[in-house]
């Protein structure tokens, strides 16, 4: 059975701890650009926790919204890439072929979620930090676009392990670093092609919405949020 990987983000559970952000950086060899470059808006975070404030002080509510690549089925980043560096994989992921990227940054402009990140300079890991690099993930040189892959290296190794052991993948077996590290279990990863998976159940939830769904990008990330309309109608 082919897989169609997706994610659910439960906004009612997220407490904005940013463990996902740290886990993602460690897993995916995300370069630290430094204070000066970060001030210029060039910091790289494949997943970020957006904070929005509701109400007037002192009656303020903070809302946390983790945003990562939505792995759109109808992704605006894919058709604009002149070299197929940004392409759709068989499992429905928005792949990014680093070696094929020439750095037009067109995909990043086309992405309505602004979740694509560019290497403005060659990344550097001062010794001994280079020892922490994950050998399963390539590092990206200057001029290359990068973004969340749903930890494709973890998905692939889980698939290979299951194949070796001649069994089907279990629900939640491949888990991206952000999902694995989320303390309140706000992030759930799974196979949308398996109607019994926890993710499929959550994706069907009446709390579910798609981020900027009106743009027609058909994201595979579902945001779960309790709201008045749901309370009244269910």
């Amino acid at each position, binding site marked *: 059975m082919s897989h169609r990987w997706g994610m659910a983000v439960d906004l009612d559970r997220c407490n904005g701890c940013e463990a996902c952000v740290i886990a993602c950086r460690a897993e995916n060899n995300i370069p630290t650009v430094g204070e000066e470059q970060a001030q210029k*808006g060039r910091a790289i975070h494949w997943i970020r926790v957006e904070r929005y404030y509701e109400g007037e002080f002192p009656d303020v509510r903070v809302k946390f919204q983790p945003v990562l690549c939505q792995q759109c089925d109808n992704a605006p980043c894919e058709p604009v890439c*002149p070299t197929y560096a940004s392409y759709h994989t068989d499992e429905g992921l928005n792949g990014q072929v680093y070696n094929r990227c020439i*750095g*037009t940054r067109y995909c*990043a*402009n086309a992405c309505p979620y602004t979740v694509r990140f560019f290497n*403005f*300079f060659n990344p550097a890991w001062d010794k001994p930090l280079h020892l922490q690099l994950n050998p399963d993930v390539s590092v990206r040189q200057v*001029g290359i676009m990068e973004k969340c892959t749903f930890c494709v290296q973890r998905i692939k190794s889980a698939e290979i392990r299951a194949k070796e052991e001649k069994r089907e993948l279990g629900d939640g077996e491949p888990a991206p670093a952000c999902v694995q590290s989320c303390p309140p279990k706000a992030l759930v990863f799974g196979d949308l092609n398996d109607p019994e998976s926890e993710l499929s159940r959550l994706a069907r939830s009446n709390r579910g919405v798609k981020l900027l769904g009106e743009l027609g990008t058909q994201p595979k990330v579902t945001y779960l949020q309790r709201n008045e309309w749901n309370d009244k109608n269910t």
Partner: protein
Amino acid sequence: MTKTPDQINHDLINHDLINHDLLRPVARVSARFFLVVAMLGLVVLAGFSAWGYQLYSGIGVAGIRRPVFWGFYITNFVFWIGISHAGTLISAILRLANAGWRRPVTRCAEVITVFALCIGAMFPVIHLGRPWVAFWLVPYPNQRGLWPNYRSPLVWDFFAINTYLIGSITFLILPIIPDFALCRDKFTGWRKTLYGLLALGWRGTQRQWHRLETAMHIMAIVIIPVAVSVHTIVSWDFAMTPVPMWHSTIFAPYFVAGAIFSGIAALIVAMVFLRRFLHLEEYLPSVCFENLGKLLLLMSLLWVYFVFAERLTIWYGNHPAEVSVLWLTQSGPYRYLFWIMVACNFLIPFPLLAIKKLRTITGTCIASITVVIGMWLERYLIIVPSLSRKFLPYAWGTYRPTWAEITITAATFAGMALLYVVFAKCVPIISIWELKVGMREASESTTSVAAVSRTRPTASGRGEHGTVAGVGFNKTHRVEL
């Protein structure tokens, strides 16, 4: 030496005078020329140094950032491709319309096209993160069977710009051939050899004239849809993405109109400089500026119409993301640039071009300079505000250019001027044979038979360069009959 155009019409078939005046810039090199070339060359050199530094350090030396991934470089790209519409398109339309006043203008215009395209086409490479693999945009057979993505507007750009470049170079070279032959006949030494090679064996036979005229006619027709397609596709680089205020059906005609607008302005500026520094007052009469000024006025009105139509629709549509970008430019941090743009593209040029008394050479020149500035700002204001405010407010950002981008931008203007100055030194910048043909036509239609018959012996008695001018003459004469 100074004469009014009317006087020229009478004793115009004074070939020696025309040849002398128009070949003078080619024949003689002054110290001033080298000074200008050196100064412009220095700025160009600074631009190349900045680019070299950027190649060495990484694209990060430019001011682009997340989410404004495109900045000055793409602005320059769109701007220069827009300027390139000066030439070929205008000259093709004027040729097909058989506008008599076009004759001294066409070559000045066609050269702008070729050079502006060369400069504009550099920017997609300059702005790349990894320019050393830019050739992956080219479809070439390779072992791994990898091709460019034909769905990407950038690949469409590649084809459109190259088609236009090849077409406009052809369109520029064709009518130069007889003038190269004239240079060959007039000059001696290494210049004779050089222009002899460039003249491609032109002898001025009836058959050659016929073929030249047919080729020019075909090119004039073919180049118009090509030119329109180029800026259409440049606009689609933006319109094909779901970015607020980019994703618009109006973009293609809006960009084409803006391109022609800025192109005419650039042409007028170039003509004013040529007129003054090459002493071509007699050959670029005020009627050329008057007529180009009227065209510029028309395009200015069209530009305002497009801007109004675009913005009013977005205001009424009231989509949050779009309206956010709209107010960013109307009254937000970009308002100064926006209203300077409106002043440069409409408020200043409109009275200068609409009031007959002000539509002088100086008036059209001032209007044109403001239009060039305004159209550069327009490209900037299309690109940057939209990117700085996409859909998720958390990811909004701003953009500031760095010295590298500013240096490279300055170098493009210096480079354009440099190429133009050098070209005007190597090739007669006014098409000599076309001018003579035009003057002949004018004299035949406006002066008496006696005047014409007076000119005929002059024409046939030309001897050494009669191959060029004389035959051109007979040819036109034949067409006229």
